[in-house]
């Protein structure tokens, strides 16, 4: 990875310009002047301009991930805002939302301010999501108003569900005043118990405690109905089961305030992959059956999901080297994201590349009310340039996270991020 300051003038030459907002792609050039979009179309390179040959490449909006864990403050040994930013850049992500399950959690205006200040020094845009409840304890609401003033963009107790339906109702109702999304990690703890994987044939063979699909879908259904009741904006994270897809699809038809995300790993793996007790595949919610995976893929194509989110969750090698039942939940996913979802959705399931890119760019930005017209003249350049056809083997050296808990090492991916432009810097990957 090489990061350099943007020159005064830079021309992205002969790329396929994919505009996810307009839903179009056409060949052309982009002129960036003083870090801002100056002209799109046919550009005659001015003198002393850097020219980037984009022949055969796709030039599009910088990717945006609504769901990452950067572990700062508290577990800087796993990830920092800085190291997480590098992982994001490598995955083409110029903007991310960080989850508040840090130590201490982001449950106060002061901790939101800390994250915002620290993020200013980072090479990508980072937006904190505030906790729904104090200490993520699922009881008392946080000072949402003050946290929003300091820069929070949504609320979630991610990692932990808001178990008490009454508290969830209050949170949704309270958040309606501000018109921001509430995100609930849906896993009913009474059904989950000590489950470490999806309840199915494989878990029975492995002798591992497991939790059924309704552990998730039951709580998602509750949240959807509470959203109907309160008129709040609900964003459903990391959906893993066919039953959950069904509930979301039904209620989304009549309620525009509901959005949902899916992760690359739930689209790529099934519980069969856990047969070797690979702790890097231990995630929450768990990787489920082939039936669920197929339902998720279909839901992506049918537009049930608004966006792809990685749920990038770094853990140390030492923690993941333990036995499966004791290893922490989570895998990293930023660096490998595009190569995985492009392969699963575009190459193997004939999805339109423009639609997939929309799920990585304009759709997540709409959910968080971020600027979506990134090709407008005068906008700060925030771009990702990819080769959608490059076949490559994902290796340890492609990981920029401080943690290495990726199950994709050694996997062959299709589609690779070549360059990113954000915050006045140009990054290239060879």
């Amino acid at each position, binding site marked *: 990875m090489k990061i350099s300051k943007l020159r005064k003038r830079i021309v992205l030459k002969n790329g396929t310009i994919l505009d996810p907002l307009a839903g179009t792609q056409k060949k052309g050039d982009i002129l960036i002047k003083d870090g801002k979009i100056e002209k799109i179309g046919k550009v005659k390179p001015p003198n002393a301009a850097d020219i980037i040959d984009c022949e055969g490449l796709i030039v599009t909006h910088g990717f945006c991930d609504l769901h990452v864990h950067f572990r700062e403050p508290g577990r800087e040994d796993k990830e920092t805002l800085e190291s997480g930013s590098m992982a994001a850049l490598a995955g083409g992500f110029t903007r991310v939302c960080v989850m508040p399950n840090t130590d201490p959690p982001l449950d106060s205006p002061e901790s939101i301010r800390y994250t915002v200040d620290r993020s200013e020094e980072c090479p990508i845009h980072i937006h904190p999501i505030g906790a729904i409840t104090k200490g993520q304890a699922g009881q008392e609401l946080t000072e949402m108003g003050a946290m929003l003033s300091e820069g929070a963009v949504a609320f979630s107790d991610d990692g932990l569900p808001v178990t008490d339906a009454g508290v969830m109702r209050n949170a949704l109702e309270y958040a309606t005043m501000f018109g921001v999304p509430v995100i609930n990690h849906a896993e009913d703890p009474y059904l989950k118990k000590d489950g470490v994987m999806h309840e*199915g044939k494989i878990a*029975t*063979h*492995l*002798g*591992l405690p497991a939790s059924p699909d309704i552990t998730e879908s039951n709580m998602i259904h509750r949240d959807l109905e509470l959203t109907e009741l309160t008129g709040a904006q609900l964003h459903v994270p990391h959906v893993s089961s066919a039953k959950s897809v069904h509930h979301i699809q039904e209620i989304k038809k009549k309620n525009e305030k509901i959005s949902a995300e899916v992760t690359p790993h739930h689209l790529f793996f099934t519980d069969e992959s856990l047969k070797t*007790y690979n702790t890097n595949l231990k995630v929450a919610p768990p990787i489920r059956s082939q039936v669920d995976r197929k339902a998720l893929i279909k839901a992506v194509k049918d537009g049930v999901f608004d966006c792809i989110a990685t749920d990038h969750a770094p853990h140390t090698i030492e923690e993941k080297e333990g*036995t*499966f039942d004791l290893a922490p939940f989570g895998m990293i996913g930023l660096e490998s994201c595009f190569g995985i979802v492009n392969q699963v959705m575009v190459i193997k399931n004939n999805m339109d590349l423009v639609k997939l890119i929309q799920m990585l760019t304009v759709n997540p930005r709409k959910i968080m009310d971020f600027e979506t017209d990134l090709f407008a003249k005068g906008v700060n350049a925030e771009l990702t340039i990819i080769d959608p056809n490059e076949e490559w083997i994902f290796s340890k050296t492609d990981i920029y996270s401080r943690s290495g808990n990726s199950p994709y090492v050694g996997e062959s991916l299709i589609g690779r991020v070549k360059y990113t432009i954000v915050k006045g810097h140009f990054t290239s990957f060879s």
Partner: protein
Amino acid sequence: MKHKHLLGLEEYPAEDIQTIIDTAFSFREVLERPIKKVPSLQGKTIVNLFFENSTRTRISFELAQKRLSADTVNFSASMSSLKKGETFKDTAQNIEAMKIDAVVMRHPSPGAPLHLTQHIESIVINAGDGTHEHPTQAILDMTSLQEKFGRLKGLKIGIIGDIAHSRVALSNIYGLKTMGANVTLCGPATLIPPFAEDLGVSVNYNVDEVIEWADAINVLRIQRERMGGGLLPSVREYRNLFGITTERLKMHKKEMVIMHPGPMNRGVEIDSAIADSDQAIILDQVLNGVASRMAILYLLLGGKQEKEKN
């Protein structure tokens, strides 16, 4: 033997299971001699790595090793450095650095033996991994059944009790199915694993029907901690519905072999009078345990070649 290690019976070939059982019978003969020791594994070093309490399995393995003249070292979690924060990987690698040939491991986590094979070169024998498998127990159970019936193929075996939390049950199911026996699981619905039928077995909640059907029943221990955990209402209810009680067996007037892997909760899952009766082969299982483990160690540690050289 097809596999270097004995991690479980899920994918263990029938002919290798049969070889182990046949070899166990020849070691049974050794155990009846006045001098119960053979030099088969002389010079081999085996570590018994027990991360979880065990009395009978550990003693059984240790005796098997001593009867084969192997050098043995015992390691148990209570006296280990695990409590000082050393990782599983470090413990394993440290022990292997001392030049050993095999590790017999008991561990509370499913999959731990497979995990161990990724860190060390030695032969690994699973002596129970959490709620996953306990292959040597299943082999000694099959040895005992073969001794009693002269065959395994076509036998009707009922496994009764807490199946969901039992490594003994899962290994028995895999082994018995591979050897052509029929298996029916019987126990409270909360203690039968989901997707049990996928294991190729039947499930029947009526213990009397299972008793009528079976050639032998394997009675599993009911752990008292399952009561109150919401899985079982009471001992009384369990005994009424599933207990192998004197009254129940009187009602059936049936010749049947009764097995129990131990340790027994007398008066809970099985009555004392039944456990001590002629139809119970519980102590034969214990003796066959030593013989079967001798066979496993001998076959996996290349004892054969040693013997041929002698």
